[in-house]
């Protein structure tokens, strides 16, 4: 059905047709066939928060164990499994996936298109993430939880010192989650490059989109490292290769280098998207365009680059040559510069704007207060002599919780509060929101600030107990109390979100009076995001250009989107996206069978691959009506090239 010429001119569309072609399938089977970025994105976020709760429970158990000296609540074996699982969960199953979830949900809407570039890959990525997480936790509940720390240094994680399948489960979980991270990275990059609404040239891209763009590139070059080394570890443990075996010329340092080459960028992979959210929240509630857009973008890019240049500062205590160390000290301090610039820009924006202290902005205030402490303790441990004293102590534990919770979780909660109306069409409760913020903020500082002092008083990290004579008892008890306040704060937030999603007051399309186009579509957005793809004519379209011209002539009867060019987002061609399909799910299942099998017997890799062949063919088998004209005349493509 092609709309009439005059309809096309006026941009009126057949909404029912649009709805028919974009509606996700319903029912249980339908759930497994959905490929809309809204559904997948929400799934990522919800699943990530479930893992966040599990990781939180583990954290509370650890705090209880340490609440008093020589506590016998957990035995050392259990404690080691719990802190390893806590770290791995928070890094691999919460922080990265939740940021990807926000990206998958928001990016297509923010760049003004109807889905991500590769919807089926997107679904596949989610299932891989889900199965990886379930796999790890199946192990944990069966007493096969990893117990070598979340960076699993060899030889402690090697075949002799960590017998059984614990570390294999951990390493394979990494393969799962990194696979999902990588496919999300690729599809987001392509979406941002090729599917922006007409007129959204590079200098008009929203800050969060920039952040996800940079983050995705970091994922692309960091994650392969961890996949490589976890794979090598698996081979060492199961088929007897010697990558990390000093006896045969391997080297434990090799593990540390490769792992931290991933591990340090990982921190910024988590942190950069948060920076993007902050910019939107600050802009909206200061009610003025963000100050220093270019500076912010450039500092984020700089962060992305420098992030790869300082992994060695995790290894100062291994006895590396002096010169190398001082180089990495310099690099590690350098990374403070772009971050500082961004904080200055935000404060300046608030300063020169007309700020209203709504709750998202409250979270950003909390972010600045906490994150600056984390950043400054980061500058301390960038210095080799200081690091040699506090490395692997509770000072470090305090530092990275200030950076990660302060730097990523606070903005994330603010961001969720901010985009919640868009996702659900309802507002969260402000009074409860304020309560949860203060509980979280106070609880957080009571929990983690004392840890600085504990570290300076010599308490190493990853100890399951300590002697009463050390005098560490009181501060540990304090931290434990704080941990519970913090937990209550998070619970209140979750309850607030749950109740609001059921019976919160309805939100208009743009409750905060924000500036970006995702606020031009109704809340919650229709499956197709926009009835008409808007044409972008400024950086704050909702403020400068509320009634923009639109793109017309996209075929409503199928999942058609517009592909534009990278620099200036000028229309290039229409592009038909695949609809609902079961194959990504089936492929994830067969891959999972292969992966889990290889933990016990390497040949399962082959069986898994063979099994995966079927869903792969199903995936790539053409579904659109064949075009007889093409291969005879060749006009279909001749016209394009």
């Amino acid at each position, binding site marked *: 059905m092609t709309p009439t010429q005059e309809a096309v001119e006026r941009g009126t569309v057949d909404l029912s047709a649009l709805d028919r072609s974009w509606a996700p399938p319903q029912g249980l089977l339908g759930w497994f066939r959905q490929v809309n970025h809204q559904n997948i994105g929400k799934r990522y976020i919800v699943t990530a928060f479930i893992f966040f709760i599990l990781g939180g429970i583990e954290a509370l158990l650890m705090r209880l164990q340490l609440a008093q000296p020589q506590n016998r609540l957990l035995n050392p074996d259990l404690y080691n499994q719990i802190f390893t699982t806590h770290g791995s969960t928070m890094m691999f199953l919460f922080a990265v996936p939740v940021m990807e979830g926000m990206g998958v949900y928001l990016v297509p809407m923010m760049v003004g298109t109807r889905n991500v570039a590769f919807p089926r890959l997107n679904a596949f990525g989610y299932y891989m993430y889900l199965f990886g997480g*379930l796999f790890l936790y199946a192990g944990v509940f069966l007493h*096969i939880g990893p117990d070598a720390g979340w960076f699993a240094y060899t030889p402690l994680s090697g075949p*002799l010192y960590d*017998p*059984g399948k614990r570390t294999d489960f951990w390493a394979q979980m990494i393969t799962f989650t990194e696979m999902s991270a990588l496919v999300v990275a690729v599809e987001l990059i392509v979406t941002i490059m090729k599917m922006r609404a007409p007129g959204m040239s590079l200098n008009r891209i929203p800050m969060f989109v920039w952040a996800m763009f940079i983050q995705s590139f970091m994922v692309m070059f960091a994650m392969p490292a961890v996949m490589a080394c976890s794979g090598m570890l698996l081979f060492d443990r199961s088929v007897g290769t010697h990558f990390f075996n000093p006896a045969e010329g391997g080297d434990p340092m090799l593990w540390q280098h490769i792992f931290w080459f991933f591990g340090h960028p990982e921190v910024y992979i988590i942190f950069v998207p948060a920076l993007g959210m902050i910019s939107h929240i600050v802009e909206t509630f200061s009610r003025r365009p963000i100050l220093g857009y270019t500076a912010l973008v450039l500092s984020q890019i700089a962060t992305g680059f420098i992030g790869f240049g300082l992994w060695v500062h995790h290894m100062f205590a291994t006895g590396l040559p002096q010169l190398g160390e001082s180089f990495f000290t310099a690099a590690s301090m350098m990374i403070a510069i772009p971050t500082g610039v961004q904080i200055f820009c935000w404060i300046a924006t608030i300063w020169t704007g007309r700020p209203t202290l709504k709750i998202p902005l409250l979270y950003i205030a909390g972010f600045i207060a906490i994150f600056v402490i984390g950043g400054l303790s980061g500058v301390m441990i960038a210095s080799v002599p200081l690091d040699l004293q506090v490395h692997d102590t509770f000072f470090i534990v305090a530092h990275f919780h200030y950076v990660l919770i302060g730097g990523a979780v606070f903005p994330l909660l603010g961001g969720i509060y901010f985009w919640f109306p868009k996702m659900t069409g309802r507002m969260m409760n402000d009074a409860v929101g304020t309560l949860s913020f203060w509980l979280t903020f106070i609880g957080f500082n009571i929990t983690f600030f004392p840890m600085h002092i504990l570290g300076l008083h010599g308490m190493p990290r990853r100890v399951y107990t300590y002697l009463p004579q050390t005098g560490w008892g009181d501060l540990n008890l304090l931290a434990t109390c704080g941990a519970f306040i913090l937990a209550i704060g998070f619970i209140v937030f979750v309850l607030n979100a749950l109740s609001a999603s059921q019976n919160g007051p309805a939100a208009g399309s743009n409750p905060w009076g924000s500036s970006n186009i995702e606020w031009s579509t109704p809340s919650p957005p229709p499956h197709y995001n926009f009835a008409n793809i808007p044409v972008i004519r400024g950086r704050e379209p909702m403020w400068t250009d509320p009634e923009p011209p639109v793109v017309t002539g996209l075929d409503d009867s199928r999942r058609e989107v517009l592909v534009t060019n990278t620099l200036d987002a000028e229309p290039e061609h229409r592009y038909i996206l695949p609809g609902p399909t079961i194959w990504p799910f089936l492929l994830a299942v067969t891959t999972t069978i292969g992966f889990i099998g290889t933990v016990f017997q390497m040949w399962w890799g082959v069986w898994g691959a063979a099994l995966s062949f079927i869903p792969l063919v199903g995936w790539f088998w053409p579904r659109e009506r064949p075009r007889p004209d093409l291969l005879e005349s060749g006009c279909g493509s001749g016209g394009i090239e």
Partner: protein
Amino acid sequence: MKHVAAGLCVSAALLLLTGCKREQRQLRAEPAERATFAAAPESPIVPGGKVPVKVEVRNPYEGDAYAIAEGEKLFSSYNCGTCHAAHGGGGMGPPLTSKNLTYGSEPENIFDTIQKGRPKGMPAWGGRLPEYQIWQLVAYVRSLSGQEPMSATPGRSDDIEYKTKAQLK
């Protein structure tokens, strides 16, 4: 999310079958296993052949990955390697990598061999080692000849003694 729950149950069940026994880590041996063991009868010496008499003695650590690893550490700590060579390759003493050892390869036979000693140089460790450590050694020795489950046996050792980088250079 009931499908998710279902998925969890399935994988859990699956892993229970493979997981539990292999993954036990008994940090504190039962009092019974601390005393040295003296019940297994002297087995007739049948060179090469298997032992006809089977006594019902089970190795509590059969297929226990942690015990096998502990056994490997004890093997090098107690210098078993000086006669049997590192990883039981065989030297002054017989190799332990064969499926039929001179004095029998059943757990109880190996236990006897370690505990009571054998002619031509195998010392009796009975008075020296607690029972559970001998059983750990038994588990390790059997793993050398692939008589312990693959999934419980490490792919290789992390032993750094027997071949150093210097020798590789």
